[in-house]
Each structure stands twice: as structure tokens, then as C-alpha cells.
């Protein structure tokens, strides 16, 4: 009971801090890093709805990021949307396009399992990247310019920040809803043993596809927001292999399959990445520092930060507890997260 109320206090505090952050910190460098971080928090949380719960490691979600971005850019250009709040109204359209594209992609990719699935998603990702570079309507390598946002220079980042924050809240609620539902349990069953789940009557195919589509929609929306914020869209940024790996890494670092893990991972990693880019002027030093840090964290906390810390806390609590208590309960402290009374 105490643990649950503590959780609610933590969630409320975190939400409040994110909500007032741009009011307290007005430095444009810091707030633009914050916008990028929110975009990645949404992406990692959305990716986790599919990959974290079902155990299928998808390394092609940049397809949805790019498609959402292109959908918004093309819509703004062809429907002559002027810059301002109207462009934010196109974001659901970006999410819809990403979701629609996820249906055929998922149908093809989900015929395979495990590492074959990983490689098929990578291959599909490259097909989209090449198509965006070579097709005429995407503007090729020169890309497309998005409308210029008319916000005042002092508070330019704020609208982007709050729209991204709203998408983040919706995504986390969706993730939480899925996790607590029968649907979420069925996904976890697929992760643990797909054949047995199928044998027990879980409609694995349909469920995997639905989760895949759900995870694509928020990424499409923040894709639109990201490129509106940056001002233009190119194939090499829209379909970036580093995006695929980054969001997977964030979810892994935080804790795959947990609700808060991907958020924490994205918060730490994206702000750190931006910080390192600005600290080390040379790209090489940045790469080495990032890679070494990344290796260290994986080897020290192989389960991810959130489950790792929970495990460590439980072990400490189990050690601190006097022995006779466990004897009376007739239970041996297992040290598994969530086993504490």
C-alpha cells in the first residue's frame, strides 16, 4: 500500500516538473533539448507498447517517424496550411498515415519471428529510406520545407514543448491501459511463450498486428512535430537507422516492458546525447564517450535501470528484514521485484 501511494506521489511530481519546466527555464538551448527529449520519450514509450510487451524486437520504427513527418510536410504544402497552431492540427493525420502504413508492414514482418523479424524490419526500413530518396513527390534528397512557425523568438519552443507533452501523456496512458488489460496480458504471454499462448487460444497474429499499429501512431505524430520544429524534412533524417537503435536502447536501458523504464531511458539518454554533442566539438570523441558509457551501463545493469534498481532495493530489504519474520510467514524472500508485502 505504501509503495503504491509513493508511486502516485512520484508520478504527480514528475508530471508537475515537466509541466512547469519551460516556465522556469527559458534558455532556448535547454528548452529545445527538452523538446527533442520529449519526442524521444514518446517514441520509446510507443515502441515499448509493441516490442517491450510482445518481446518482438522491431528495428524499423523510423519508418513511422519518417512517414508521419512526410505526411505532415506534404499535407501542409499541398493544402497550403500557414504556419502556426494549424500545423499542429495535422499531427493526428501524420499519426493516421503511420498507422495505415503499419498495417501492411506488420502483415509482412510478423510472418517471421525472433531475429528474422529483426532483420525483416531493418530491410523494410531500408526500402522506405530508398523510396523517399528516389521518388519524385518527396522532393528527393533536397527534401521539403515546412511552414515557418510564427511564434515569438523568446517563447518559440513552448508550443512545441506542450504539444509534445500532451502526446506523451496520451501515449503513457495508452501504454498503461494496454499493460493493465487482458490484451496486455496476452501480449506478455506471447513474449514468454508464443506457441503455448497460441495453444491456449490467444489470437497471437491479430494481437501482434494491433500492438504494432498502436505503437506506430504516436511515433507518426511526434515525427510530424519533430520536422515542423526543425523546419524541413530530408530522407536521411526522416529515415535514420540511429533512430531505430536509439529508441530500442532507451527502452532497454530503462527497462524493457515496464511503463516508466522507456521514459526514464529516453530522458537520460537523449539529454545526455545532446549534452555530449555540445560538449565535445569533435564527433569522434562524442562517439567514443557515448559507446563506452553505453557498454558500461549494459554490463552493469543488464536488466535495465528500473528493474535493476527494484531488484537491488528488494534484495536490500530482504537482507534487512529479521530472519524470524520470514520464518513465521513460511516464505523465503525471493528478491523478485514486487514480492515485497
Amino acid at each position, binding site marked *: 500500500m505504501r509503495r503504491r501511494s509513493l508511486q502516485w506521489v512520484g508520478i504527480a511530481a514528475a508530471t508537475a516538473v515537466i509541466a512547469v519546466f519551460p516556465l522556469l527555464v527559458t534558455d532556448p538551448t535547454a528548452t529545445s533539448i527538452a523538446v527533442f527529449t520529449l519526442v524521444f520519450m514518446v517514441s520509446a514509450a510507443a515502441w515499448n507498447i509493441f516490442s517491450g510487451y510482445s518481446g518482438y524486437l522491431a528495428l524499423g520504427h523510423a519508418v513511422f517517424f519518417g512517414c508521419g513527418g512526410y505526411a505532415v510536410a506534404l499535407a501542409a504544402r499541398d493544402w497550403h496550411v500557414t504556419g502556426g497552431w494549424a500545423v499542429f492540427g495535422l499531427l493526428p493525420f501524420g499519426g493516421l498515415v503511420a498507422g495505415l502504413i503499419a498495417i501492411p508492414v506488420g502483415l509482412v514482418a510478423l510472418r517471421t519471428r525472433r*531475429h528474422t523479424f529483426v*532483420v525483416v524490419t531493418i530491410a523494410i526500413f*531500408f526500402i522506405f529510406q530508398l523510396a523517399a530518396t528516389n521518388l519524385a513527390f518527396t522532393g528527393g534528397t533536397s527534401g521539403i520545407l515546412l511552414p515557418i512557425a510564427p511564434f515569438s523568438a523568446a517563447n518559440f519552443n513552448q508550443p512545441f514543448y506542450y504539444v509534445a507533452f500532451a502526446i506523451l501523456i496520451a501515449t503513457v496512458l495508452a501504454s498503461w491501459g494496454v499493460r493493465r488489460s487482458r490484451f496486455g496480458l496476452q501480449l506478455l504471454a506471447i513474449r514468454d511463450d508464443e506457441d503455448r499462448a497460441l495453444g491456449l487460444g490467444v489470437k497471437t497474429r491479430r494481437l501482434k498486428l494491433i500492438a504494432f499499429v498502436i505503437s506506430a501512431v504516436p511515433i507518426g505524430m511526434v515525427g510530424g512535430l519533430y520536422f515542423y520544429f526543425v523546419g524541413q524534412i530530408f530522407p536521411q533524417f526522416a529515415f535514420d537507422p540511429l533512430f531505430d537503435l536509439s529508441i530500442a536502447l532507451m527502452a532497454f536501458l530503462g527497462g524493457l516492458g515496464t511503463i516508466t523504464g522507456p521514459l526514464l531511458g529516453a530522458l537520460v539518454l537523449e539529454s545526455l546525447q545532446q549534452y555530449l554533442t555540445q560538449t565535445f566539438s569533435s564527433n569522434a570523441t562524442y562517439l567514443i564517450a557515448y*559507446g*563506452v558509457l553505453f557498454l558500461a551501463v549494459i554490463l552493469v545493469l543488464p536488466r535495465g535501470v528500473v528493474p535493476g534498481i527494484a531488484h537491488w532495493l528488494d534484495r536490500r530489504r530482504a537482507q534487512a528484514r529479521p530472519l524470524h519474520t520470514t520464518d513465521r510467514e513460511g516464505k523465503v524472500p525471493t528478491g523478485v521485484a514486487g514480492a515485497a508485502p
Partner: protein
Amino acid sequence: MSSTELLQAIVDGILTGGVYALMAAGLTLIFGVMDIINIAQGVMVILGAYLSYVLSVHLGIGLLPGLLITLPVMFALGMAIEFCFMRRLRDQDRTQMSILVTYAVAIVIEGVLTAIFGVDFRQLQASYVNSSVHMLGFYLPVIYLIGFALAVILLAVLYYGLYRTKFGRAVRASLQNRTAADLIGIDVNRVRTISMGIGVAVTAVGGMVFGATNSFNPNTGYDLISRLLAIVILGGMGSIGGAMAAAVFLLVINDVVAVAWSPTWAPLVYFAALVLVLSIRPQGLFGRTAARAQ
């Protein structure tokens, strides 16, 4: 398009396919023995190319004699990575974690190469790099022939080692069932370390040929690894023969499309062929039907 052009494209595809087969064989060997997907294989090929570059430009050692130095160096690197990182991974999620760890290794190698060489594109030079011979009506670039010959020799050695020696039997035993191999007295850890060394060592040869036929910079590894993964998956993970067949198949498709249609769309057809084959045969061309239960 004339039929000579088509035949020429097919021959080119087979020759380059041999070199890709060698690099992919290393990847598939590592996967087969250890359930590890080595994302760094692409960057290691580039590292091999840079090693050859340093030896030939700064020390005046030719590309072919240089292999006597680069092969052991890459072998040692592979063993070191297995010893330092792979050994610590837990068995349950070994494949997924290995993707992350080797990706981090790839980033570090890319960073080190960028720090030393910068991002300018380079290419390996030797007297035989730009010459070609005219044989049976085809123009065959000498470097492709050398690469193909080296690939065939090394693959033959690899095949002999795996199927005709005691160590090869130990490797195959650990590949089939690691607990049973342990029980009959095979030092599985040692087998794994050496296998990783061999799997990485082939990138020295791959890198030399790749560097002589393509211009490269530290970033080129990512394009390469996606192609190698495509080959390995198409051939069936863990199957060296499958990797060879898939490499030749995909490279021939790539080169024929480049001639018949356009070079810009060739990679797209390459990946589309992969997706198409896998949606019909998810286990790959020569893969074991039932993948090992995780």
C-alpha cells in the same frame, strides 16, 4: 540491354558475391556457435580496410602480404570482444543483448576510426586494383578475381576445419547442444572464444577486398552490416552454405537490376527480394525449420 551486358552483370555478381559470402560466413558462424548477432561486423570490415590502408600507405607493405598481419590482429580483436563482453551475457536474452553490446562496440570503433582518419573517403590502391583481364568474352577486374579466389580458399579452409578436424567437431557439438557438449568434456568457453576470433578474422580479408573495390569512411559499416544481415538471414542463420548461396543470389540480383533498370533502385530490389523470400520461407533458404527454443 544486350545479353552480353546481362551475362557480365551475372559474372560480376558471382565474383562480388564470393567476398560477401566470406564476410557473412563469419557472421553466421558467430551466430551459430553463440547465438550472438554481431552488429559490429560491418564496422570491423571497415577497420580491416583501414588496417590494410595503414600498412600499404605508411609502411609500404602490399595488400596481400599485409593480410598476414591484419588477419591475426582481427582474430585477436574478436577473441578479446568475446572474452570481455560476450561471456558476461546471460543465456535467456543473449541474442537481444548481444545486438546492443556489439552495436556499442561498433560505435566505439567508428569513433576511434573517425578520430584517427577523419570522415574523408579513401580507397586502397595497388598495381592490380584497376587492371582487368579479358577472359571468355568478359572483362574481369583483377581485384574481383583475387577477392573471389581468397574467399573460396578461406571458405574451403573454414569448411575443412569445421567438418574434418577435432576442433571443428567440438564447434559443431557446441552449436548443436551446449550443455551436452559441456558434459562430454568440450571446453565450450574456449570454443566460443576461438569461433568469435575466426568469425571476426575473415573481416580482414573482406575489408581488404571491399576497400579496394569501394571507397569507404568510418560510416560505411552501417550500409554493409544491413547487407550482411540480409545475406545471413536469407541463407538461414547458422548455415555457412546458406550464407554462400544467399550472398551470390542477392549480389547477382543487385547487379542485374543495376544494369537492367537503374543503379539507384538496385538496393531496393535487394531488400525487397529478401522480404519476399522470408515471407514465404521464414526460416531462410537453408535454415533449420525449428529454430532453437529460447
